[in-house]
């Protein structure tokens, strides 16, 4: 029947970012994979969620307040954990209970079911979701990456860039991107500063933040690239339509 849209089920990663011991939730999601049925997508989401839960301390997500992690107040969380056969942490010397330290210490001794019960209570800490989406056409957008200078080296913006031109054909977009990069490199050759470029934050943002820690300043310095290794334009695939 004409007009009927084909539906896919997309597994998307919520936009969590790590800094030091903290995890911050940022707006938006990143699509990882699409499936023809909800059941397949949900199975994939569960697998990814279970892997993430092995790596992340949920009490570091969003900050130290329990309200960032659960809809339960502290008393009800306390009772929930007692019901699960766990001993919750207590406030010490007038300071609130250190839930993150409790998780670090107690997690190893929990059964799989107890861990699952804790995560069930922490309903605000989720890393993946399944979204029902119509299949949409895509465009290939050449974006110009913004670089800023920190008096030592140039730093690429963490994601995306200034949209330049849209293409329906991927190869045409890649060709235009190469051309733009060549022109940009020629222009940068005349710059009156040492040309050292840091792409590491951008690479970290493009990767999986749940498996890869953001680079330290020392790692960033060690990973600096010259003009030939830097990118000034990239091609981004984006869905078109409501």
């Amino acid at each position, binding site marked *: 029947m004409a007009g009927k849209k084909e539906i896919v089920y997309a597994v998307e990663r919520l936009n969590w*970012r*790590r*800094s*030091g*011991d*903290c*995890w*911050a*939730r*940022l*707006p*938006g999601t990143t699509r990882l994979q699409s499936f023809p049925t909800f059941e397949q997508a949900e199975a994939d989401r569960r697998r990814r969620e279970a892997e993430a839960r092995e790596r992340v301390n949920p009490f570091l997500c*969003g*900050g*130290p*307040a329990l*309200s*960032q992690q659960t*809809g339960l*107040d502290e008393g009800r969380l306390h009772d929930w954990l007692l019901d699960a056969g766990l001993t919750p942490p207590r406030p010490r010397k007038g300071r609130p209970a250190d839930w993150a330290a409790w998780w670090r210490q107690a997690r190893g001794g929990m059964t799989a079911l107890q861990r699952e019960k804790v995560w069930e209570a922490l309903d605000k800490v989720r890393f993946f979701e399944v979204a029902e989406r119509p299949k949409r056409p895509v*465009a290939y*957008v050449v*974006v110009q990456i*913004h670089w*800023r200078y920190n008096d030592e080296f140039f730093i690429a*913006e*963490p*994601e*995306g*860039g*200034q*949209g*330049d*031109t*849209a*293409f*329906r054909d991927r190869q*045409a977009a890649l060709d*235009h991107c190469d051309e733009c990069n060549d022109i940009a490199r020629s222009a940068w050759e005349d710059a009156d500063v040492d040309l050292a470029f840091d792409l590491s*934050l951008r690479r970290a*943002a493009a990767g999986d933040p749940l498996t890869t820690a953001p680079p330290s300043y020392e790692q960033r310095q060690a990973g600096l690239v010259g003009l030939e290794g830097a990118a000034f334009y990239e091609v*981004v695939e*984006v*869905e*078109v*339509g*409501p």
Partner: protein
Amino acid sequence: MGKTSGRPPRPKKLYLVQRLGWNVWEDGGRPVCSRAEEDCGAPVRAFNGRKQAEAFCREQERQARRELSPFQFHYDFAEEEETKLIAGLPELGLQPPTPEEFPSAAYEALIEWRAWWDAVAPGLTDEQREGVWGLLEDVHFFEVVAIDWEGNASGVTRWKP
């Protein structure tokens, strides 16, 4: 009336909804986010019509405000702004916090707004939540950018939601 080609006219502009990029830092055990104004962000979806793009942009913005703490993105106040925030809270039916209740770790005479939000957020209505965002200096997460399809004259236009 002359015959027209069967192929629909190609739209001249593509309207990109972009998610703005943020840098994440840790401050006193809490994450805080800042951004370089010149950074653009990642394309989320594109539309052939501007109105559709703006509507999608507004919905994304509303969803972000429903789910996230404004003080994760807005943590360093000018005095006038804090005064405006404190003055505006009663109109939303909220009791303004005091430094005694929520002292800043850096300076006890200041209010730790992130801790205040963490304490009150679970009980806020959608209107109160939106109202607090509205009392703060404009923080937005998405924008619409119009770019050219291949073959059209160049030019980029940006809109905030």
